[in-house]
């Protein structure tokens, strides 16, 4: 494997690993805030104990999230040095603001969340919990502004003197529609994850007939918060698809395995077997109109197919080569204003010309065959996207059904009546993580071959470091992270088994608590 593949593998592995902990932090921090608000408003001790018990599990997860997040922040420099140089002027800002505005808040206050119970008033502690929850959400916002810009790089311009992208309109970067859609979709996925965690463990306790007062109350919170989250995640995922259809037409076409442009409105392929080599989808089961309606919100706009997009990419590569040639002449003659103007006219396609660098260094001499190959390389891995997307969406609809049922049972006080429901809740525990990871695979693997859509090919972004170093660190991360995963799961299982009474050192169900539930 070369350095590009090793670096990509390491980034994918560490990012997917980091995102095992993030959604639970996003969701559980708000669930803790809801529970503590009830405690402060009603003064009932059981709600404080719920915050402390779920808070213990939150703490185990939070430490892993913080620890593995450090890797993410530094990998752009260690493994993607040319990327960092090329877009740091734009991409670095939201990362730095995330640290300053959000991460500092949650990380500074989380210590008081655990150690501050006896040192703060009730309201004081509630404010600390709120700070942790709000900080986590803002953290996600800034990271997704950075990620949104990778998908839809607006508000920036190429500067030939510094050979990099520079900010031209910061508010465009900030209010990037892709970033907004991705933010709400991602935090809603976090709310589903947090709710599922609480729902599943509470269901386990009810099945075991342990800690009934805590489990019933927790389930009620999880059911309503989870239903809201599940509805949001599906609706806002649709919004995410709509914004992608505006600027990442190839990603949409690949998700749909739609090789040829269909007459509008396009039909949606429910299932099928995409064939990459033959550029066709076998055994496709199609629903008329649906794709056109979802992606264009109209019945007359076309959704372009993969083959037409490849032809478009060829044109853009040829146009980009003009920009590349102009840039080379400008380097020799930096004062020439005419060359600068000529560069501006074609610079939007410069990134497409850079795709040729995979085949030869002197890309201005590229042959027609190489240009055709480079254009073909803009097709992402269709079968993976096709299936990852469908499994993710199926999970989304299952969450609506499950949380809808839980909500109904909690409103009618039947949460304990059906063991089938409790088992369903328990065994659904891994699904939000599965859906979230698949979502990132669709978003980032679907962006290939670009690291910045249309601007910088992924293979150019790597560092100049020795491939053996990357192999070493990749093996190191795999071994090290696997060990941490064992410790994390071990502690989680241990505290879940112990349950709230032993975790907190006293029984959480006060006398009369059962009557309270029944009332």
């Amino acid at each position, binding site marked *: 494997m070369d350095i590009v593949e090793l670096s990509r593998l390491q980034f994918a592995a560490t990012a997917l690993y980091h995102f095992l902990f993030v959604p639970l932090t996003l969701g559980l921090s708000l669930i803790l805030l809801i529970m503590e608000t009830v405690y402060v408003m009603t003064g009932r001790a059981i709600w404080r104990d719920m915050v402390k018990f779920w808070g213990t599990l939150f703490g185990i997860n939070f430490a892993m999230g913080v620890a593995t997040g450090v890797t993410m*922040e530094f990998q752009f420099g260690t493994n993607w*040095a040319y990327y*960092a140089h090329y877009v740091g002027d734009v991409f670095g800002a939201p990362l*730095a603001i995330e640290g*300053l505005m959000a991460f*500092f808040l949650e990380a500074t206050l989380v210590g008081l969340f655990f150690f501050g119970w006896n040192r703060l008033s009730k309201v004081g502690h509630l404010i600390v919990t709120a700070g942790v929850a709000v900080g986590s959400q803002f953290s996600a916002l800034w990271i997704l502004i950075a990620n949104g810009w990778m998908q839809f790089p607006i508000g920036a311009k190429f*500067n030939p003197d510094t050979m990099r992208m*520079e900010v031209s309109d910061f508010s465009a970067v900030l209010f990037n529609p892709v970033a907004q859609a991705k933010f709400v979709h991602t935090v809603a996925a976090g709310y589903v994850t947090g709710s599922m965690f609480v729902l599943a463990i509470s269901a386990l306790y009810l099945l075991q007939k342990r800690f009934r007062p805590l489990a019933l109350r927790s389930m009620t919170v999880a059911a309503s918060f989870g239903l809201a989250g599940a509805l949001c995640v599906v609706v806002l995922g649709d919004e995410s698809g709509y914004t992608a259809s505006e600027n990442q037409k190839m990603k949409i076409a690949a998700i749909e395995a739609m090789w040829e442009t269909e007459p509008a409105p396009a039909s949606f392929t429910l299932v099928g077997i995409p064939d990459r080599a033959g550029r066709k989808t076998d055994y496709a089961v199609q629903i008329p109109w649906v794709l056109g309606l979802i992606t264009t919100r109209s019945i007359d706009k076309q959704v372009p197919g993969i083959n037409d997009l490849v032809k478009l990419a060829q044109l853009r590569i040829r146009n980009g080569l003009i920009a590349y040639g102009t840039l080379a002449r400008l380097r020799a003659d930096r004062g020439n204003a005419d060359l600068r103007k000529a560069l501006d006219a074609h610079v939007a396609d410069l990134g497409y010309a850079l795709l040729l660098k995979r085949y030869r260094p002197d890309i201005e001499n590229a042959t027609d065959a190489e240009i055709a190959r480079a254009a073909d390389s803009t097709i992402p891995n269709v079968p993976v996207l096709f299936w990852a997307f469908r499994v993710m969406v199926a999970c989304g609809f299952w969450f609506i059904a499950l949380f809808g049922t839980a909500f109904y049972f909690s409103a009618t006080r039947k949460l304990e009546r059906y063991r089938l429901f409790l088992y369903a809740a328990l065994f659904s525990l891994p699904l939000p993580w599965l859906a979230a990871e698949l979502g990132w695979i669709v978003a980032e693997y679907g962006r290939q071959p670009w690291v910045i859509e249309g601007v910088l090919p992924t293979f150019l972004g790597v560092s100049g470091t020795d491939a053996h170093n990357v192999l070493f*660190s990749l093996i190191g991360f795999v071994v090290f992270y696997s060990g941490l995963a064992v410790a994390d799961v071990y502690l989680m299982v241990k505290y879940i088994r112990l349950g709230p009474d032993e975790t907190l050192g006293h029984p959480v169900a006060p006398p009369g608590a059962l009557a309270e539930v029944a009332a």
Partner: protein
Amino acid sequence: MSYEELRLVWWALLGILLIGFAVMDGFDLGSAALLPWVARSDIERRQVVNSIGPVWEGNQVWFILGGGAIFAAWPALYAASFSGFYLAMFAILVALIFRPLAITYRSKLVNPRWRGAWDWILFATGVVPSLIFGVAFGNLFLGVPFTFDSDLRFHADFSLFSLLTPFALVVGLVSLSMIVLHGATWLSLKTDGPVATRARGAVLPAAGAFVVLFVIAGIWLNALTAYAVTSPFVPDGPSNPMLKAVAAGGTWFANYAAHPLLWLAPALAVAGAAGAVLLRRLWAFIASGLACAATIATAGFALFPFLLPSSSDPNAGLTVWDASSSKLTLAIMLAVTLIFLPLVLAYTGWVFRVLRGPVKASDIEHGSY
């Protein structure tokens, strides 16, 4: 503000963030490095761990913010230093991932083998980053072999072991002794009983080692060949390091010769170490914090205007005038920093106030901690 002023301000902010990291995260690292010496029983070790337990997360953000701010304001420096020092960065990362988990996870099980293992991990994660940061700083003065091609792609040619030169190792020990000193004053402030007494006992040797090593490093630095920009001074040009000329020559004390007031920084570093010995409790902690801050300032003043000099292609060396972000990005980031950094300091101060007072052995025995 002009581009020149913005670059200067961001150079100062880079220093402030490094100082924030050294002062805030420094006492965590130092406490961890002192763990085997100051704590003998499990209760004593929990005193040490719990003294940093509620605050390490916030402290670690100084490191993460430092990385983010370098990325945003000095992308060329971020790209060159992080990829150039690849394996050193990996070692630091592993330490900084392990350390929080050691703090959070060690006391979650009673099993002595579980706790013993995490205690050794905690010790290593205190020593390793403190040493490596110093070694990296030492290498800045020696110059690192790298260059850029016409696409401004960074090419480095050195291994981890080529960085371990005698001078760099001395700077590494300066850093380690400084951090240990800071951890010792923290523990003598935030614990009681035998732990506090042993921590107090570690202050004098740590301060002595720091001062001796600091002076040796200074004398050695004076003997090294420095770099100087020889092309005309362009403070507001494009951030392209290949547009200037640099020659080896002169000494790293040129800035000090031109501006004698700068000698205050090394003087304060020594005075801070002396203060940590002579003063008690909070004042000693402030004094050791001052020593950390002044040490970093001393190095920064000597290097200016260089951020990362190149030994193989001196022209490629990164300076304050050709390694920054665009003017617009620097201005936006400055505005954001001016709003949020005071807020960060305010709520960090509040958290430390809420947590004031030592972690007592009796509190841990009674389970109230």
